[in-house]
């Protein structure tokens, strides 16, 4: 075992406002060789890494969520600030590197000043100096350093300029602090007086005035302060120029934030996002499907038709494969979300949708959590921590399970493939878009109803607020987006994978045992028919069937039988298990075609009991889709909802309200369609 020296334990935390260049610097120092850690309560995962050897410093570096002040305004800021004072896993930082965007120096110095006042060991990394220079200004790090009484080094985390110097200074500070001894940072009083903030800004403006100078054409610099003494008006003019906005961003915003076009483009962007999930993924999905079908076939061939052959081929490979098929769709969804975030559009989306959402008791800040809800409800619920108002936050958590999460995709894709086979795939795509729309409409209606019920369901009241920075548009770095979606997808499968594997095993066991070998009369039957009769007789005598008969009374009113019932019950652990359960119950595997097509083949043949009536018809498939739109079939979401809201009240209400609504609507749809003659 490697013995950790004291130096090994140095922790340097990167702190700074959003978009000040923390992650860029972090990536440069870590060489992307990091592990993501779940920052307690952060919407995204944050990373910790040892600083690369070539920098000659024995320390770990922790990236952190952006904050603008030490006084928190929302639960996520509170967690970030608490973790800064003492991270639950890594403790108090030995050194804090504050990133300060030089082109927005007055705003970004606020946090730096507060950290210094609170007696953190601080050095400042001045970023975006190139942007300041482009505006025609220069900044003196020595003046800043003197005024702030801490080291200031200008860097560019993209090229690595100045980073060596930064690390050298960090090392010196660490050594110095080790001698002077650690002093605990002083907790920051959240109820700061407005006068304090006004004074702080005044102080910062004076520092800014001393440190910033204007570059004139011949390369000489004019001190703003000197000019100020001579001509007050000129100083004003200079000041304004330093606050000049990025002109490209402004031009894009003329359209993106336009009163009419802004909202049109907003809905267009959302529509493209969701349809592309389906179109882009299709070819890859077919490939995955084929490979698993082949694997399962080969496994059965090699291992033989006995219990372990069946367990591997049917239980494991088909079970896991029927869910893996949807991997491409999930990756694409994360990819698009990452792209939207990195360009800076998500903040605009939140602004555009704030007013409509506030009408139904939500907030513009509910937008990003709701959007993430299309990937997975769990990170989405965590993301609601950015909503300062508790009532709005609880309401957002309440409706998130209605957003069409990626776990539903496998189910919809299978059911739609059944309804619209082969050449009608494009109709399936449109129907899927319709399902997404339905999920949005239903979540919005539920929010409206719950909001109207005033305090019946959500009892908290609080001041509502929406203050959000709209960052300059940036061209997203493809490697960053790819990296992030890789991490999100991995996290998703880590979470879902074990459940799917275990449940596939359980369902396989229930459908295979008690290993009943029926004697059947094979006279007048083809080999294929005989095989089918045998497997259906086996299933009818299995443990699963015994369990299924208990729930038959619940399934009959919605036109389905116990086999669908068993699959539905198992889907309450995680929705995608529905598909693998169906695959097992209808004994897919053993032929060379794709998993999905042999599954669809079996589903087409399935009848209810001895009635000869088809089990899967347009009516029952539509009913199943409706069931999945509404029902809360995800134990992990309920657990997170419990944790985020502080009691079982909300998750239980969610469960009963959404699931009974699902059953009711399924009943109406199935029987309504039948009454209209659509079977």
């Amino acid at each position, binding site marked *: 075992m490697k013995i950790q020296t004291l130096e090994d334990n140095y922790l340097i935390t990167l702190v700074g406002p959003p978009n000040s260049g923390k992650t860029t610097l972090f990536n440069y120092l870590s060489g992307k060789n990091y592990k993501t850690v779940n920052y307690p309560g952060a919407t995204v995962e944050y990373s910790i890494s040892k600083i690369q050897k070539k920098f000659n410093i024995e320390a770990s570096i922790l990236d952190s969520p952006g904050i603008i002040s030490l006084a928190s305004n929302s639960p996520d800021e509170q967690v970030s600030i608490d973790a800064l004072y003492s991270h639950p896993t890594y403790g108090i930082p030995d050194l804090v590197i504050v990133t300060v965007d030089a082109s927005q120096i007055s705003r970004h110095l606020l946090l730096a000043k507060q950290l210094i006042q609170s007696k953190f060991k601080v050095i400042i990394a001045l970023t975006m100096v190139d942007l300041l220079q482009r505006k025609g200004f220069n900044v003196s790090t020595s003046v800043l350093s003197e005024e702030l009484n801490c080291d200031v080094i200008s860097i560019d985390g993209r090229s690595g300029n100045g980073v060596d110097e930064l690390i050298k200074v960090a090392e010196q500070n660490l050594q110095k602090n080790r001698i002077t001894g650690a002093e605990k940072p002083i907790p920051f009083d959240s109820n700061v007086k407005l006068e304090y903030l006004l004074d702080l800004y005044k102080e910062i403006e004076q520092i800014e005035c001393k440190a910033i100078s204007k570059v004139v054409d011949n390369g000489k610099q004019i001190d703003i302060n000197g000019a100020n003494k001579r001509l007050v008006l000129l100083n004003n003019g200079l000041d304004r120029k330093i606050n000049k906005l990025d002109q490209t961003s402004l031009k894009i915003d003329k359209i993106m934030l336009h009163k009419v076009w802004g909202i049109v483009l907003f809905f267009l962007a959302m529509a493209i996002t969701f349809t592309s999930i389906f179109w882009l993924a299709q070819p890859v999905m077919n490939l995955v499907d084929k490979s698993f079908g082949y694997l399962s076939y080969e496994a059965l061939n090699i291992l033989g038709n006995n219990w372990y052959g069946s367990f591997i081929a049917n239980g494991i490979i088909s079970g896991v494969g029927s869910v893996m098929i949807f991997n491409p769709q999930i990756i694409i969804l994360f990819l698009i979300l990452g792209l939207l975030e990195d360009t800076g559009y998500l903040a605009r989306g939140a602004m555009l949708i704030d007013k409509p959402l506030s009408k139904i008791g939500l907030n513009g800040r509910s937008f990003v959590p709701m959007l993430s809800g299309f990937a997975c409800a769990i990170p989405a619920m965590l993301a609601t921590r950015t909503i300062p108002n508790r009532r709005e936050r609880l309401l957002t958590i309440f409706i998130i399970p209605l957003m069409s999460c990626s776990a539903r995709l496998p189910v919809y894709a299978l059911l739609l493939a059944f309804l619209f086979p082969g050449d009608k795939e494009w109709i399936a795509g449109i129907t899927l878009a319709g399902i997404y729309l339905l999920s949005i409409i239903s979540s919005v209606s539920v929010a409206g109803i719950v909001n109207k019920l005033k305090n019946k369901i959500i009892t908290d009241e609080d001041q509502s607020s929406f*203050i959000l920075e709209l960052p300059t548009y940036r061209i997203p770095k493809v490697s960053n987006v790819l990296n992030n979606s890789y991490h999100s997808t991995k996290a998703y499968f880590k979470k879902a994978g074990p459940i799917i594997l275990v449940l596939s095993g359980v369902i396989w066991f229930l459908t295979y045992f008690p290993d009943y070998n029926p004697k059947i009369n094979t006279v007048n039957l083809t080999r294929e028919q005989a095989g089918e009769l045998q497997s259906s007789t086996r299933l009818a005598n299995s443990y699963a069937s015994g369990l299924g008969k208990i729930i038959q009374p619940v399934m009959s009113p919605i036109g389905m039988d116990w086999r669908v019932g068993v699959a539905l019950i198992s889907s309450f652990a995680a929705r995608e298990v529905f598909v693998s359960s169906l695959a097992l119950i209808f004994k897919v595997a053993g032929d060379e075609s794709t998993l999905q097509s042999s599954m669809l083949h079996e589903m087409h043949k399935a009848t209810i009991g001895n009635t000869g009536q088809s089990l899967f018809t347009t009516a029952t498939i539509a009913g199943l889709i409706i069931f999945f739109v509404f029902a809360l079939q995800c134990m992990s979401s309920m657990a997170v909802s419990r944790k985020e809201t502080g009691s079982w009240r909300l998750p239980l209400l969610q469960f009963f309200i959404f699931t009974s609504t699902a059953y009711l609507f399924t009943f109406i749809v199935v029987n309504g369609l039948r009454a209209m003659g659509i079977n």
Partner: protein
Amino acid sequence: MKTAADLKYGETGIISGIDGSHPSSRRILEVGFTPGQEIELISKAVFNDPLAFSVRGTIIAVRKNEASCIKLL
């Protein structure tokens, strides 16, 4: 009295003070709306709410109700 909520599209104004009785006044100050700063109305969302202002070299979106606590000269 004129407030930031009264600005027209593209109009600028100089902040004279912040109404400290408004619950959001602290955050308004923290993001950079301080007396003496020049702000400009960059955009209004549908239904004219929220409003986006340029302040200290960035754009901040603020609800109309909250913008009304930013008093102008």
